[in-house]
Structure formats: C-alpha cells, structure tokens
C-alpha cells in the first residue's frame, strides 16, 4: 500500500537525508574556488485517489539545483580578463619605468658628463688629460646606451618566454575544458534535463582560469557543451575539439587549425588576459621605448661625427668619426627583417641608411608588397598606418625609397605579392653605437682655417673663420695647407677683392676673378661669396677678351667693336635627376659690353654676375717727330710727358679722376702696364701720332696688337657763310675789329681798314693783318673756299689745332664782314682704335646651369657648355669692424694651432641644439621617453586599480547569489535535522499503529 504511513515517513527520511547531504555538501565546499551552492527542491509525491479524495504519499526529491546566475558568472569572467591584462601590463611597464628613473642607471647623467667634458676641453683644448677625459666619458656614454638597450632587450626576450609559457597554459586549460565538455554532454540524465552540477562548476572554474590568460567569448550549445572563441571570433574549443595556440617568436602568436597544422597569426586580435597584456606592452611600450632610445643614440652620434669631421687633430689632420653605429654596414644591414614571406623562399637583402636624424620618427615601418605581385610595394609607417613612400622592384635591383630621414635600399632577393618586411630604422640604435676614437691626440678640436691681418693694417677690421662648410672642397685637398690660401685686400673702405695668396710676394687673381665685393662696416660680414651648392662659371669663349681694332683710321673717337656676336644665354634649372624645371633666356646684342651682359644675367633668378676688363700695354714708342703722340683711354686723352713711358702713363691714369671713378686703374712695373676696368665696361684705346709711332697691346688670352699712328689729323677751321669772292670794303660801316687766337696761343686783336675789291685781295689783306698781329706768321691760313666763303684755318692739326674768334658777335660789323660769328673750334685727330671687351664671372645657385646657343665651336662670350667650379670655398670667414682701403687679411691652414677650440665649441653646442626639430634636443627627447613611459605606467596603474574594483564587485555579486553562507547552512542543518526527527517520529508512529494492530489480532 503506497499510502502506508511508514512509506510516507520513509520518504520524509529519505528527502531530509538528501537535504542534509546537500547542506553538508555546501558547508564542506564553502571555500572551494568556483563552487556554486546547491539547493534541494522537494516535491510531494503524486496523491493516490481514495474515492473521497486524494491521499498524499509523502515527499520526494525533485532535483538539486545550482543557484547560479549565468550573467553574474560571465561578468566575473570578463572582468577577470580585463584585470589580468592590465595587471600584467602594469607589472611589465613598471620594470621599464624603474630602468629609466634611476639617477644612477638612467641616460641623463652619462650625457651630462660627456658634454661637461667637452666644455672643459673648450677651455683647454691642447691639454692631453682633458682630451683623455673626453674619451673616457664618451666611453661611459656608449656603454650606458648599450646597457640600457640590453636591459630593455632582455625584458623583450623575457616577454617571449612568458608568451610561450602562457600559450602552453592556455592549451592545458583548453584540453581540460574539452574533456569536461565531453563528460557533461554524455552525463546520465542528460535526456531528462538533469545537469551534473559539480562538473559544471569545474568547467566554469577552468574557463575563469582561461580568462585570466586570454580574453574568451563563451557560447553555450544545445547539448550543454560550451564553445569558446578568442580574439575576433576565432574558435578555440568546439565540443571536445581543441585548437592549439603557439608562440612562434618575435612576439607573434598563431592559432592552429583543426587538423593540428599551423594556422594564422592572431597576435593583433588578442586582447585581455595575460597574453593581451604582454602583447600590448611589447608593441605599445617596449618597442616605442627602444625606438626613442635608439633615435637619441643615432642623433648624438651623427651630430658629433659631422662636426668632428670638420676639425683638425693635434697633428693637423682632419678628424674622422667619433662614434660608430650610424651608417656602418653592420648596422644598416640589420635594420630590416622579414615578417611574412612566401613559404620556401629566403628573405631578401635590405639596407637602411640614416640620412637626417632631425627627420627621424620613432615609429617602425613596414614594406608591404602589393598582393597583385607586380613588384610594387609601399612603405607604411606603423604608428599611423600612413603610406610614406612607394616603389617597385620591377625596374631592377637595387632600388631605394626614402622617407622620414632614412632610405631603404632593396639590394637583392626574390619578392612576391603579399610579402612583408619590418623596417626599424632606430630600434637598435642604442645597441649599435660604439666608440671609434681611442687616442687623445685624434680628437679634432681645432678649426682647419686660420685668418688674420697682414702687417700694417690701418683699420680696425677683425677677421675670424666662422664655419667649415665642406672638407671635401678642393681648398682642403692638400694635407696641411689651403689650396689656395687667400688674400683679402680692401680696395676701399667698403669694397675688397679676394686673391690667390699661394705666393705671398705676388698675389694673383682667382679664376674666375673675385673683385669689387661689397663690405658693410659696423655689422658682421661674411667675406667669402658663394654658398654650398653654388657654382661659378667664367666666360671662356673664343670671342671673349679679344683685341679687336677698327679697320681703318678714323677722324675723331670712333670706338672699335669689341668683337662679341649676338647670342642667347640660357639659364636652365634642373632637378637632381636631370629633369628641367624652368629656363630663362637672355638675348645679348652684338658688341654688348661685359657690364651690360653681367647686369642682364644678374636680373635673372638664381644668377648673379660681375664683369671686368683687362688689357696690357706692352710698349710705347714715340718715334716720329711730326704729330705728337697721344693715347686716349675711354675718352681721356694723354699726351706729352704722360706718354713718355709706361710708368708715366700708369701714374697719369691713376691720377685722372674721371677714369678712377669709372673703375679704370693702371699698374705698371716698367715692362708692362696692366689696364683694367673693375666694372666690365669695354676698354677703348686710341692712338694718334705719326705712322712711326707705335703702341703695343696684349690681351689676356695672349693675342697681341700694335697700333700705329695715323698721321696728322685735320686742323681747326672756321668757315664763313657769305660769298666774298667779290671782295669787301672795310671803310664803311666799321669799326671792323676782332680777336683771334690759334693753336692754343694768345689772342690778338686784328683791325681791318681799307677796301678790297676782289676775293684774292681780301684774302691777302686779311692774311697780312693776321700775320702782323703777333699771332705768329703763318699760323692762321686765310682762304676762300669754292663758294667764296671765308675760311680761317689753323696751322696745327688735331687737338693741337685750335682757332677761336672773339668780338664778332652776330650782327656786329666783323661778323657781317667775315660771315663768321664768334666761336672756337678745335681740330680733329686721326686715330687708330682698339677695343677689348669684358669677361663675365657668373655665380649660379644650386640646380641652375648656364648654356649658350653660340654657333661657333669656340664660342662667343661663353662656350656652349662652359666648365664650372664650386662657388663656395669650403669654409667661411666673418669680419667685423672698420677696415680701411689698403688693409689686407690672409687665410692659411691652421698648422700648430693646437690651442684653437672652435671645433670643440661647436661639438659642445650639440647639447643644446634642437636636433630633432620640434621634438627638441637630446635631453628633451630623453625626458620624452621618461614621460611617455611614466604616463603610460601611471595610466595603467589607474586603469588596473579601477578594474580591480570592478572585479571585486562582480565577484561580490556572484558570491551573493552563489556563495555559501555558513550561517544559512547552519540554520538549514537545524531545520533539516528537525524535519528528519519529525519524519523518524512518523515512522515510529507507523510502527506503533502496526504493533497495535498486531496485538489485536494475536
């Protein structure tokens, strides 16, 4: 009978036993990690129909439930991942932080000591102990860089090890979860929806531990199994199928395929958990810190090296590099590595050369070959993903691309679509830096150039070498000397010329010459014209500076042409590849002077030109006695004692204000007179004299010309306007008085009286009166010309012949009678002319080129493609003060200048220079790293503390739902025990009723 009391009692006992067992289970598992408390749920047996009603049949155990909230559990798992990731990150970054912070092991003290030694050396550059200190401090700095690199690098290696350990752990946990999945799916009671509570707890706990290592997404399946995904949805566990995570080095992690083969790289999609923390740290902080440190090392080494090369050592030799590691082969070939290349192929060979530390960034770069496979690739900056350069290997190797201060050259190898190479220009900078100089005497602290004044300067000009521009310049080609040493001679207070001082007794002009350079007193002037990149072109064409003479003698000053043809000069601007960017053209007219050509060229962009003219007079021979010898230079006439010899002519030219102000000077050493025009105007020379007189000329290109006198010129003549062939009557309408002067002689008064009926008589009378006047017999010749007009002619010819009539104003009797009004006239000489044109010296800016379209092979002013020399001198001088005309200054090589500190001063200045542009100086960059890491660490600490708080909260919530409260369980124990006792009492009563019935029957 199911309704028997005893059964009811027994059912109660059994139920309470189960409840007690469950409470006991809860109590004993109160501190089990991940345990969810269980509750029994009891239900009454289905009642039995007994006619009048239903009779209950006791209690039965319905099920044992887990009191769990999946949402709370999931939340705990998520927060665990987040917290674990941040905690790991903080731990790692804390180590870097400590390295940078330490006063003793940080970089700043070593940098300061090194520059301090340089400053000390600037006070005493020749002292060996001071130099030795620089070397040992440089050594200290290099080892500090190397040590810091090693610390950070070993952390990187440690990270790789951690990644390995963590992936192994993930795989272990995955295996465990897979097995549990299996057991849960095949557990008894599955079909009726009964779940194995404790197995679920264990699986949950394993999942939580997995979440500590990597962030996971859990998706429940229908059969109670859980599928686990990581990253961006890649499956890790499906049922009992587990895929393996592997750390393959270089911070990369792969997720294997279902069949066990190696799958794809998932590093970038992993977040959260320890793995996420490691990856985030490695990519976000460690790489950045190493790159920044490397950039400082490279910037320092490069700047110090560059400056050091421009100085000279104690032995007078140019300094080499102080530090290695910037662009040595060992460094450049290791800055690029393969990330992802086609399987089975060997990585290609890439070199990375640093061009300009100022433009370096702190990012890594990637070369990504186009998937299409046509050989084109892009250079991508990793920090912001921008493509900074593009190139192609299709045109043949080697090929280069440049960006951000460095150049990547692909030297050799095979490349396929999709290949990726990692380019890290600054990553190993702190490892590669090494010291090259070992000996104190090899430090180049002095400037190679010495400048000073020569003896006897009157002004207050002071010259100092200010910079060395390029030690590869021909000026420094010979060891221990300047080629050429220069003499800077002031021709006036505000202008100077630069000469070749190789022979101090005879300074020579440079080729092309540099004259007439302006100086501004009172400011700092840079003396040497031309800057780096400029080139200088001199006119060297066939026509230039040729002596040309007029074909025949001319009356009066008619200049000979200078022999220049018309031509077009082109100034072309080309870029480094020969591609034309622009052309300017200048049309030069025939016979144009050097000055005009230079002015025309200077008006063009990128060009400045000067001109000057020189010619030598080699001899003066005054052989003839008839016509006096006269030499005319640019309109100024020299005769008499001035032309006795070359010396006298030179002196006379020097004293002539008109010529001096036109820039024309003459120097004679007795054998040769050098005539020059500083402005490039044509030099027009004329000679008048007897045919036996001769003047020898020589042009700068060696051509010679002899000018001979052209004989007498014409005399001075005054011609009347009235026909007097019928004579004239002076008796009426007088008085007929006039004054006459002739041939530079005195003026005499002539009075005419009488009447002369014929032209001849008139002429004779006038002649007689003039001859008798004291003017000198025969000096004035009177005649009538073909039209009967009165002609007074001087005896002297050329400039010697003058005639001047006075007292015959218009309308006066004398004027009417003679038909001539008052006036003077001078005779004209006969001249032979020679002209020499100026040479042009052109200074072209960088990228500008000069060419002409001259048709002859020998060229006009320039040859078609004239040769160029460098426009600069390789160094620069500055002058202050007020020099006077005549002062001169010389430059020479700084031999024995061991106490000169110009170069070490410049090296010390690197400390405060803004090496990295807007990123500041070396120290600013270091402070940047400290702040960068410090700020990240500080942020990480805040984030971690916040996530710890969130994790604690979600744990608290889960516990409040699923955690065991011992007091509660204790109360339950009491309750269930009482119920058990009560049920036992029911069984006792049932036994009593049975006993009673038994006694009745027996």
């Amino acid at each position, binding site marked *: 009978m199911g309704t028997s009391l005893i059964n009811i009692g027994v059912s109660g006992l059994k139920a309470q036993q189960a409840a007690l067992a469950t409470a006991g289970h809860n109590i004993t598992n109160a501190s089990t990690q991940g345990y969810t408390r269980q509750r029994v749920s009891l239900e009454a047996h289905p009642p039995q129909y007994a006619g009048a009603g239903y009779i209950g049949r006791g209690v039965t155990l319905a099920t044992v439930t887990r009191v769990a909230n999946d949402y709370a559990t999931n939340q705990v798992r998520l927060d665990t991942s987040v917290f674990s990731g941040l905690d790991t990150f903080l731990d790692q970054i804390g180590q870097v932080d400590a390295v940078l912070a330490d006063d003793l092991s940080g970089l700043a003290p070593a940098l300061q000591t090194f520059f301090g030694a340089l400053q000390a050396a600037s006070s005493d550059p020749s002292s060996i102990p001071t130099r030795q200190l620089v070397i040992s401090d440089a050594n200290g700095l290099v080892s500090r860089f190397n040590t810091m690199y090693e610390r950070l690098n070993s952390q990187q290696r440690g990270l790789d090890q951690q990644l390995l350990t963590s992936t192994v752990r993930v795989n272990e946990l995955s295996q465990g979860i897979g097995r549990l999945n299996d057991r849960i799916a095949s557990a008894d009671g599955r079909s009726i929806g009964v779940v194995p509570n404790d197995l679920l707890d264990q699986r949950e706990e394993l999942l939580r531990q997995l979440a500590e290592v990597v962030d996971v997404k859990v998706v429940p399946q229908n059969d109670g199994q859980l599928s686990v995904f990581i990253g961006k949805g890649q499956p890790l566990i499906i049922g009992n199928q587990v895929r393996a995570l592997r750390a393959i080095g270089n911070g990369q992690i792969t997720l294997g395929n279902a069949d066990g083969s190696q799958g794809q790289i998932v590093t970038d999609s992993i977040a959260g958990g320890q793995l996420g923390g490691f990856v985030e740290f490695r990519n976000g902080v460690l790489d950045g810190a190493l790159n920044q440190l490397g950039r400082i090392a490279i910037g320092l080494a490069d700047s110090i090296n560059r400056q050091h090369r421009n100085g000279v050592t104690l032995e007078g030799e140019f300094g080499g590099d102080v530090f290695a590691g910037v662009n040595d082969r060992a460094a450049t070939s290791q800055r690029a590595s393969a990330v992802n290349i086609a399987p089975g192929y060997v990585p290609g060979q890439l070199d990375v050369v640093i061009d300009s530390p100022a433009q370096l960034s702190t990012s890594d770069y990637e070369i990504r070959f186009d998937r299409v496979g046509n050989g084109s690739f892009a250079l991508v900056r990793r920090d912001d993903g921008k493509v900074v350069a593009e190139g192609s290997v299709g045109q043949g190797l080697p090929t280069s691309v440049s960006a951000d201060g460095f150049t990547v050259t692909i030297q050799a190898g095979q490349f396929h679509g999709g290949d990726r190479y990692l380019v890290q220009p600054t990553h190993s900078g702190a490892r590669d830096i090494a010291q090259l100089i070992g000996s104190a005497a090899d430090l180049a602290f002095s400037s190679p150039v010495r400048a000073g004044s020569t003896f006897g300067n009157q002004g207050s000009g002071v010259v100092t070498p200010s910079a060395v521009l390029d030690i590869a310049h021909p000026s420094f080609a010979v060891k221990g000397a300047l080629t050429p040493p220069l003499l800077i001679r002031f021709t006036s207070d505000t202008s100077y010329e630069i000469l070749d001082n190789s022979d101090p007794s005879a300074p020579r002009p440079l080729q092309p010459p540099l004259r007439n350079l302006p100086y501004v007193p009172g400011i700092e002037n840079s003396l040497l014209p031309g800057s780096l990149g400029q080139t200088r072109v001199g006119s060297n064409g066939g026509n230039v500076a040729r002596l040309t003479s007029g074909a025949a003698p001319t009356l009066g000053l008619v200049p000979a042409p200078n022999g220049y043809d018309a031509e077009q000069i082109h100034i072309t601007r080309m870029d480094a590849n020969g591609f034309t960017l622009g052309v300017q053209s200048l049309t030069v007219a025939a016979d144009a002077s050097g000055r005009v050509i230079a002015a025309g060229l200077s008006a063009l962009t990128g060009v400045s030109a000067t001109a000057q003219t020189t010619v030598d007079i080699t001899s003066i021979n005054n052989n003839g006695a008839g016509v006096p010898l006269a030499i005319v230079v640019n309109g100024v006439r020299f005769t008499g004692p001035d032309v006795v010899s070359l010396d006298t002519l030179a002196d006379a030219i020097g004293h002539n204000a008109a010529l001096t102000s036109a820039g024309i000077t003459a120097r004679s050493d007795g054998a040769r007179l050098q005539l020059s025009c500083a402005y490039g105007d044509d030099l027009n020379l004329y000679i008048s004299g007897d045919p036996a007189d001769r003047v020898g000329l020589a042009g700068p290109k060696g051509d010679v010309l002899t000018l001979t006198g052209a004989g007498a010129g014409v005399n001075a003549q005054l011609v009347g306007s009235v026909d007097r062939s019928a004579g004239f009557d002076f008796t009426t309408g007088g008085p007929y008085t006039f004054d006459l002067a002739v041939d530079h002689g005195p003026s005499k008064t002539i009075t005419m009286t009488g009447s002369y009926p014929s032209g001849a008589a008139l002429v004779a009378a006038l002649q007689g009166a003039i001859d008798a006047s004291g003017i000198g017999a025969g000096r004035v010749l009177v005649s009538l010309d073909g039209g009967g007009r009165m002609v007074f002619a001087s005896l002297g010819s050329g400039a010697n012949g003058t005639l001047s009539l006075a007292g015959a104003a218009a309308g006066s009797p004398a004027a009417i009678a003679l038909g001539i009004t008052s006036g003077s006239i001078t005779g004209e000489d006969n001249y032979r002319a020679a002209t020499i044109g100026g040479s042009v010296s052109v200074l072209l800016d960088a990228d500008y080129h000069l060419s002409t379209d001259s048709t002859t092979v020998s060229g006009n002013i320039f040859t078609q493609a004239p040769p160029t020399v460098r426009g600069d001198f390789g160094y620069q001088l500055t002058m202050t003060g007020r020099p006077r005309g005549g002062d001169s200054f010389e430059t020479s090589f700084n031999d024995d200048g061991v106490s000169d500190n110009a170069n070490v001063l410049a090296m010390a200045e690197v400390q405060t220079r803004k090496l990295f542009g807007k990123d500041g100086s070396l120290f600013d960059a270091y402070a940047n790293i400290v702040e960068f890491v410090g700020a990240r660490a500080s942020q990480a600490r805040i984030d971690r503390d916040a996530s710890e708080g969130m994790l*604690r909260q979600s744990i*608290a919530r889960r516990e409040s739902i699923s955690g065991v409260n011992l007091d509660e369980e204790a109360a339950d124990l009491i309750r269930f025990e009482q119920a058990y006792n009560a049920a036992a009492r029911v069984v006792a009563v049932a036994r009593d009723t049975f006993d009673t019935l038994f006694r009745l029957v027996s």
Partner: protein
Amino acid sequence: MRIASSQIYQQGINNMIDVSRQLAKTQQQISSGRSFATPADDPVAAARVVQLNQELALRDQYRKNIEQVSSQLELEDSVLGQVTDVLQRIRELTVQAGDGVLTQQDRVSLATEIATRTDELLGLMNSRTATGEYLFAGSRGQTQPFQRNSAGEVVFAGDQSQRRVQITASSSLAINDSGRRLFTDVPSVATTFSMRGAPGNDQEARGAIGQGKVVDQAAVDALFPDGLIVEFASPGADPDGQPNFTVRRVSDHRVVGDLLNVPYSAGQSVIANGLQFNLYGNPVEGDQFLIATGRTQSVVSTVEQLAEGLNEFGESAPDQAELQRLLEHTLGNLDHSMDAILKVRAEVGARLNTADSAAGLHQDVEVLSKDLLSKLRDVDYAQAISQLDLQSFVLQAAQQSYARISGLSLFNSL
C-alpha cells in the same frame, strides 16, 4: 542583500591589502626622501626633473668655465701690469737719456739697463699659463710667440685667433688675447717697415735680410702703404755671371730707382726708397725678401732701436740731432704701446666683470632651480608622516574589526 561567508572574509582582506599597499608606499616615500619612486607616480614631474637636472649640470659647467676664464684673464692682467711697469721704467730712462749733460759713456750704461729690461720684457711676453701654454700665442699655444729670427730680430710666431669659452647658453668670452695686438701692431709715430724672407726661399742658402733702418723718413712715408720686394735673378742677367738682385715695388712690380740687376755680395747694404737694409748669406735665383711698410711698430722694436741708438750715436751734431729724433719717436711709441696694453687691459677688465655677473646669474638661477627640483622631487615630511599615522590607524582598525567579525558564526552556538 545576501552575503556569502567567503565574501565577508574576502572583503576584510581586500581592505587590509589596500591599506597595507598605501602604507608601504608612504613608508617608502619617507625612507627615500623622494615623493615619487618611479616616473609612473608623477610622469610630468619626472620629465621636468630630468630637464632641471640637465639645466643644473649645464650651469655647473658654465660656472667651471667662468672660473677658468677668470683665472686666466687675471693672470693676463697681472702680466700686462708687469709689462706696463717695465715700459714705464724704460720711459724714464728715455727721458733721462735726453738730458744734454750726459756723455756717451752715460748713455751706453743706460743702454745696458735697457737691454736688461728688454730681456725682462721678452720674458713677460712669452709668459705661460699653469698648464704650459703660451699666454699670448693665439691658437699656437705650444709655440713660443716671440722669437728671434736668423737676423736677430724678434718676430711674432703665434697667430691672431682668440679662444672663446661658453659662459652662458647664449654668450661666450674670449679667454686670451693675441700678442700681435698687444705688442706688435702698436701704432707708431712714423712710418715703419718690416722685413722677412719669403716662405719659399731656399733654406740651405741661408739668405737673410736684416738691420733695416729708415734713412729718409719722407720717402718712406710716401712709399706707405706700398712695399718693396727684393728678387734674386738668374746669374745670367749679370754681365759677370754673378748673383744679382732687383728691388721692385710690390703694388705694380716697378723697379725702384735704378736697382735693376744689382750685383750682390754677402753683407751688402742697400738703400731703396729711403730704407736701408743689409742682405746676408748666399741667396739663390728665385729667393725673395719682402719689405712691407706700416704705421705700426712692435714694442720690442722700439726698445731695441732705442738701445742701439744710445750705443751708437756719438757727440757729433748730426748724431745728436738723430738722437733727439730717436728719443722723441721712442717716447711717442712707448706711449702708444702702453695705450695699446691699457686698451686690452680695459677689455680684460670688462670681460672679468661680465664673467662675474654671469656667475652671479648662474648662482641665482641655480638656487631657484634647486628649489623647484626639491619641490618636485622631495617629499613633504610633515604631510607624509601624518599620512603614515592615519594609514597605520586605519590598518589597525581593519585588522581588529576583521578579527572580531571572523569569530562570529552560528556554528559556535550549535
């Protein structure tokens, strides 16, 4: 809300852990004296500290430079002072020599003292610093600046560069002055000249030029600023095949007077353009000797000419006239020399002043920077210790309350 037993314990422990962590941090601050242990604690302050340290180190270096500059400039000043004293004494002797009462013998004894003074002067001009560098040699610090050449004249073998040293970030001071400016390029009363052999002369031939004298001042004045060059020509130019030379002007190479292909014999005396000089040795073809005129005369030259004159000039009237002229010129040139030295001393004084004020500036800024550094980096003990007290108290309270609560359980009453 329900609280699991584990939570009661966990919360209590969490709180104790948190407070312990803070307490440990405070304790570290107190024991290290630093308010932040790593840059993470205060990244901005950490970066600023790096920069402040760098600035302090720079200023320290500048101060060291200033010390170096000051000590060297003071040495220079004291040497120049001694030089001035010597020149002053020579001036007195010059004035004394002008006394008509003196005999030739007296003058000779004056000349002897002047010779001693000259040596003293040379010694001072060749002074060295403590490190063995010559003070007035410009950048040729290991070369004695004032040396006698083969003709017995004192020439300057240094150069004119000034060494500069950084005393602040933006300014530098010259640490030396060239002997050229101090002693050689002294403005002279009358036009003077200098003579030297060209660098390219044959060394073995030992050709030399010396004992130059002005015999016609007006001619020399007219020659200035031009110079003369004595060129030895090929023996073939001389009818006897002897060595011969030509004297030309430097500016245009014109022959001076009739000094064309003059036959040469060793020790020959030549007069050109008012200058007299002697040629020695066996110069070969191509050797050149340069004579430059100038308006400067080195102080040693002045003094030596004085001594020579005192020794040579006799009692005759023309000699006496020459002597008077010499004494006049000497006085003028000595005054100019002392002026030149005084000018430089004034500059040196100004530089010392600049160095002083720069040092003062550095000191002030250093104090400020150290102060700021301390504010950023050092812990405020008062605050830290009171924090320590508070945190210890809180920790104690947490521990005790935990102990109390953990003892409560229903099982104790069962």
